[in-house]
């Protein structure tokens, strides 16, 4: 029963949306802050960048951020929430391309074709920074750090498909998938061992090219081996090293 009295409720775990940055500081999850700071740009120096950034959202679970064929004008950095990108193949089947977490950027694969080659759907309530791409390119031309970072993001995007390439067992794929998610959360300052799987098991299955039953069977096996704990969508990685070991052939050293 909902009560107006919220006494005794502890705050939600750290959420990037609670931290919007200000005149002098970047948002905690800003996709570009580290690149800029690393070469000595502070926020005041980046007024221009700030001008080309627009906070958008919320997008509710199931809402499209963009659709295949939409003209490409901007890239989106996830501020909070999770996004799934996917495309529909010639047989009309959905192919999940990836999942994007706070601090990660979607839309990079639209730079060349100048229209979005995939759909992006929010998997839970999500907020974004929208970067106008023409303005961003102009800025990148003047600020090498921004350009370098853009290239880095692009190459990361190209490399991320390797999780799926090759002939790997379901256990290897799943272990690599969970390890990769954990590492990405950890890189943004969240817990890398305890997080919510906001994607459905169907989406995980599709992404890893496994059957939905296999996803559950492998997770159940990991659970009984004491590697993970699963409660609803909440995941707790109990033995990250063992999981990394299982998925090692798919993971960067």
């Amino acid at each position: 029963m909902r009560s107006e009295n919220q006494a005794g409720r502890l705050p939600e775990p750290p959420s990037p949306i609670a931290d919007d940055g200000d005149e002098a500081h970047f948002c905690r999850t800003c996709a570009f802050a580290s690149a800029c700071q690393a070469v000595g740009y502070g926020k005041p120096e980046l007024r221009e960048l700030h001008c080309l950034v627009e906070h958008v959202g919320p997008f509710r679970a199931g809402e499209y951020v963009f659709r295949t064929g939409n003209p490409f004008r901007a890239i989106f950095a996830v501020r909070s929430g999770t996004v799934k990108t996917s495309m529909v193949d010639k047989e009309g089947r959905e192919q999940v391309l990836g999942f994007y977490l706070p601090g990660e950027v979607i839309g990079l694969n639209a730079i060349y074709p100048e229209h979005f080659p995939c759909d992006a759907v929010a998997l839970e309530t999500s907020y974004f920074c929208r970067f106008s791409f023409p303005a961003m390119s102009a800025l990148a031309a003047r600020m090498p750090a921004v350009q370098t970072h853009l290239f880095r993001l692009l190459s990361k995007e190209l490399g991320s498909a390797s999780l799926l390439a090759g002939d790997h067992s379901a256990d290897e794929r799943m272990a690599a998938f969970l390890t990769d998610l954990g590492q990405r959360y950890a890189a943004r300052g969240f817990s890398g061992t305890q997080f919510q799987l906001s994607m459905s098991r169907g989406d995980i299955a599709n992404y890893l090219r496994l059957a939905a039953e296999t996803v559950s069977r492998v997770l159940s096996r990991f659970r009984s081996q004491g590697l993970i704990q699963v409660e609803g969508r909440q995941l707790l990685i109990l033995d990250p090293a063992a999981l990394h070991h299982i998925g090692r052939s798919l993971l960067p050293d």
Partner: protein
Amino acid sequence: MSHTLAAPAFDPALIARYDTAGPRYTSYPTAPQFHTGFGAAELREAIRVSNEEPIPRPLSLYVHVPFCMSPCFYCGCNRVITRDVGKADRYLERLYREIELIAPLFDRDRTVRQLHFGGGTPNFLDMPRMRELMESLARHFSFARDNAREFGIEIDPRFANAEYVRGLGEMGFNRISVGIQDFDPVVQQAVNRIQSVAETREVIEAARASGFVSASVDLIYGLPRQTLAGFDRTLTEIIALGSDRVAVYGYAHLPDLFKAQKHINADELPDPATRLALFGRALERLTAAGYVYIGMDHFARADDELARAQREGTLQRNFQGYSTHGECDIIGLGVSAIGRIGDTYSQNARDLTGYYAAIDAGRLPIARGLELDEDDLIRRTLIGELMCHGELDMQLFGARHRLLFGEYFAAELARLRALAADGLVTLDGRMIRVTARGRLLLRSIAMCFDAYLHANEAPKRFSRTI
């Protein structure tokens, strides 16, 4: 986690003081909170979400068979009295359609680990009908392997024999629950249920011979003309039957709510002191005979899976009382059946007319339900902990649910302190522990945490706490 609970202590004066109306918390929130705003669309959505979990929960089916050959006057269940088996066919036809409507909504790899047939009288269905029903269920759902499933059925031994029970075993049933209430002939006459020890024994022994893992019997105290001496003789017979579990329910006389009870002469009901003494005697005799008190109305042999689950900390509440399969999503099939999918409860139409109308229109027959919010979920877990394991680590619970326990439950703890003063619980900075005396008053303890009970002084339609 493993711990031993204090054996319950019977304190009639204390129990008498707490003998007020209260829910049994087979669900939280309790059924009176279900509302018509939750219908078929909401249930479909809950099922969809439940399929999308990384490891979807296994399934538990509850099948309601509402028919009885003859009316027992104490009954408060949803049932239809008839000798016309044709009525069952009209019902089964709808039940099959309901199964066809709901089963495909669940992903096929979600196996059925638990099945329970309740009533009414499930054995109103003869062997061929029962077999057809089980075949339909097996066709539309994926049954778990033999050793991983718990398939139970309630049996009225007056209308079942050894052969019938053997047949059930062949169909996959491995748990049986046998209604008795009282063997005292005077009481049996007053409640219109004449049942011999011999026919009861036949059913239980047949179950054992057919490989059933657990047999349970039901008794009721507080029935008309019940005496301590008569009930004591019944207890002797029960103990000799040697079932694995015994449930001892308190009779709730609510003739305005349950028509059949109008046949009971209120003057013949035992007075409150006798009522309590009857339960006290059951407690004394059963524990002396090696049964462990689980909580509420339930006793089990120390080696029964229910007692084991309690020792291992895995026991949970469900609609049948206590369960070792709390992790399942429950699908309610048949008139008035209640389901529990994810964070929702839903109940089918409570009368045959409404149930048939929905099915005939091709709709899921959901009449009402509820989606639990975060507060409901927190309280459901808390009440379950107290009723199943008799203790709660407030710090740990608070950390797990992001609460400052003392602040969030300030009003509840104030209520609980009054119970602590009466010796039902002990409270220190960290733990709530149900005492030996409190174990017989679990409802009163749980009620302290029921937000709905204290929000609007809900109408008291519940049976007595003991």
